[in-house]
């Protein structure tokens, strides 16, 4: 393994040129290569995760026609959720784009710990492999929902996937947590310590703020999941009873556990689970700010207010987890508290929304693909956030909990918003990654398909939820739900459209990598620091250290009629 680097002392370039294919593309220390590796891994996992959804959407629309058994169905929804959240959105948005743009946007040569960074990536690869392998063990993959609430997930007899499949699920998640935590340490250390001269905290692009805040959130909330996973593992294999109460009867047999409390797992899980939502959403919003500013040709509105709002969301995000548990049997007074505290989050979120919208005020919009995705994100985050108002209220949650209203809501937030931000980021930074631009026609086709497909799917799901359509049902056999379930074929057809457009993206991504039009150093005429590096930027990013002399969004400045200034300009 080529862990050692040859350090070129090429006076003309001054970059370190790693020699050989392995050290350059596989075990590279370069944050940009590692970022792209994460993106490619996320693409592969995304095909699997989204493919699962195509499979079970077919079953829902035309029951019995998808060659799917009820066992397959519960496994498919569980694994779809797990893979999409942890191995697609986290890997592409947080790990992939985060790795790529953090050092470039703050003016660092690389991450604070490049070796650790490479190890983080190569830790997650076996994790992803184990998660995929769990499909093929006896009983199939985990089938207790992505939340894997015990006792269902703790007792092998409770569900077919709760045997080896669930063990592998826990193992893969443990590996994910290790990798993600190492990545988070690196992010925070890099952002705090390696900023270029002149790059004060309040001169950082909002993207960097969001990565910083989400890394801190992750470091503080993932330990709760770690603890829960350790206890669940002990309950499964060590004979303990942390989550397993006395005298359960499964398949007619009395179990031997005593006194555990299943609700404890839910508290621990959501203590991570809710911040995780913000870990996934905030960077997408951050990227949208950057892309909006660059293509609306004006500074973001309310930079300071946005940074404040992001911190407020992060802090509040850690004390509202109970709104996932209104009807779980938790003390009803806590239900009232969590309603009130959750709705306070509407304030900073509204602030962010206003700043996103306000950035378009009196804009001079350039309608390129990244901009289209950023504009789509504004609508997605607004629509999804408004669904949150219903779910944050315990009273309304009596009707909406665990219905398709929830499904539609969280897909709009951590599915559509996050991926729109990711796509905006990929189209936007692609020239910096490969020195080429992605195909605009295919990109716009991808945008239309994604926008129409996902919005129809998830908006209609809100209405199905109003009709009381419960989630994770293999087939809708209840009478009351027939009118809502009648919409399933429509939803499925648009899900196919959404899935098909992602294939366009994949083609575009890999084709443009080798055959896209050559890009200049600063193709978007943007102002932030990464656009002062070469396209593609070499290992080490710059020849000479950049010195920052202004705010990140200097549009509308500049006396020479250009109308914008780089962050390094005087």
């Amino acid at each position, binding site marked *: 393994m080529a862990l050692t*680097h040859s*350090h*070129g*002392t090429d006076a003309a370039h*001054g970059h*370190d040129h790693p020699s050989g294919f392995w050290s350059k593309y596989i075990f590279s*220390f370069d944050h940009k290569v590692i970022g792209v590796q994460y993106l490619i891994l996320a693409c592969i996992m995304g095909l699997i995760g989204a493919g699962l959804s195509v499979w079970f959407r077919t079953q829902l629309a035309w029951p019995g026609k998808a060659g799917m058994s009820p066992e397959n169905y519960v496994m498919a929804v569980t694994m779809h959720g797990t893979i999409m959240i942890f191995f697609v959105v986290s890997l592409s948005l947080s790990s992939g784009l985060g790795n790529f743009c953090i050092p470039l946007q703050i003016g*660092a*040569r690389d991450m*604070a*710990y*490049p*070796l*650790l960074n490479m190890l983080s990536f190569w830790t997650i690869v076996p994790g992803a492999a184990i998660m995929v392998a769990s499909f093929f063990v006896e009983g199939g993959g985990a089938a207790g929902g992505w939340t894997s609430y015990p006792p269902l997930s703790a007792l092998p007899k409770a569900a077919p996937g709760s045997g080896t499949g669930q063990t592998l699920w826990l193992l893969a998640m443990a590996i994910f947590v290790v990798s993600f*935590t190492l990545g*988070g*340490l690196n992010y*925070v*250390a*890099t*952002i*705090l*310590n*390696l*900023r*270029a*001269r*002149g*790059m*004060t*905290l309040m001169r950082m692009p909002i993207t960097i703020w969001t990565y910083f805040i989400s890394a801190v959130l992750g*470091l*503080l*909330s*993932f*330990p*709760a999941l*770690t*603890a*829960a996973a*350790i*206890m669940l593992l*002990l309950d499964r294999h*060590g*004979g*303990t*009873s*942390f989550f397993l*109460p*006395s005298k359960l009867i499964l398949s007619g047999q009395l179990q031997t556990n*005593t*006194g*555990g*409390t299943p609700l*404890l797992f839910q*508290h*621990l899980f959501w*203590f991570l689970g809710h911040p995780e939502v913000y870990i996934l959403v905030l960077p997408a919003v951050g990227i949208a700010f950057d892309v909006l500013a660059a293509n609306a040709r004006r500074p973001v509105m309310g930079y300071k207010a946005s940074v404040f709002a992001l911190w407020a969301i992060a802090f509040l995000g850690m004390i509202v987890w109970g709104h996932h548990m209104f009807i779980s049997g938790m003390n009803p007074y806590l239900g009232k508290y969590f309603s009130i505290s959750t709705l306070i989050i509407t304030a900073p979120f509204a602030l962010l929304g206003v700043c996103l919208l306000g950035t378009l005020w009196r804009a001079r919009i350039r309608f390129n693909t990244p901009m289209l995705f950023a504009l789509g994100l504004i609508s997605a985050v607004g629509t999804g956030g408004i669904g949150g108002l219903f779910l944050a209220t315990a009273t309304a949650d009596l009707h909406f909990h665990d219905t398709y209203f929830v499904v539609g809501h969280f897909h709009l937030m951590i599915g559509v918003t996050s991926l729109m931000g990711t796509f905006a980021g990929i189209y936007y930074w692609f020239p910096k990654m490969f020195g080429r631009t992605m195909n605009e026609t295919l990109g716009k086709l991808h945008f239309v398909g994604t926008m129409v497909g996902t919005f129809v799917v998830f908006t209609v799901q809100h209405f199905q939820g109003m009709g009381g359509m419960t989630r994770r049902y293999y087939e809708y056999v209840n009478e009351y739900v027939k009118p809502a379930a009648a919409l399933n074929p429509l939803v499925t057809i648009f899900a196919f459209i959404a899935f098909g457009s992602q294939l366009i993206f994949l083609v575009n991504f890999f084709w443009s990598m080798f055959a896209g039009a050559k890009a200049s150093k600063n193709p978007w005429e943007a102002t932030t620091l990464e656009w002062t590096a070469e396209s593609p930027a070499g290992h*080490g990013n710059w020849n000479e*250290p950049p010195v920052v002399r202004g705010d990140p969004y200097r549009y509308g400045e500049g006396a020479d009629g250009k109308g914008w200034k780089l962050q390094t300009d005087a």
Partner: protein
Amino acid sequence: MLMKSDAWESRAWEGDDLPGGGRSEANRTVVFLMIAGAVMLFTTFTASYLVRREAAGWGKVSLPAICWVGTAFLVASSVTMELARRKTASARLWLGTTIGLGVLFALGQVEAWRQLRASGVTASSGAHSGFVYMLTSVHAAHLAAGIVVLVVALRRAGRGSLGGCAAWWHFTGAAWIWVAAVLTVF
């Protein structure tokens, strides 16, 4: 810390005059964050402990006496760690002592587990004993990480600050007192 790049450092780019203090400050940041994360982990376990003890099948056991001997070792090791950090001249000696005391504590833990087992206390024999094994093991993992870091520091003693190592080591000591107190008092 993990990768030296002569070509980069010769340019004095990521030096100490950056607004964030550069690479040497990064180690401190990381140690601080790791301690914050570990505090969250032990807090979560403590909260779970307090919730679980209200329910049936608690079956409290007491820690073997050897654990308290181990506590003394850990407290002493914090003192020697502090000496190593301050007295750079004899740093290697004090570091070695610290590692030795840490290993003694770990051996004491193994003996404590053996004694518990011998008296019929296993992870599945009661809820409290489950917590005893789990919390002491999780603490032992943090301590083991500390020992590894100290051994690395010993090999390169004299170069670089021991501040980060010391902070982590003191934290594992404090975490032990925390764990032992929770397991005994509640």
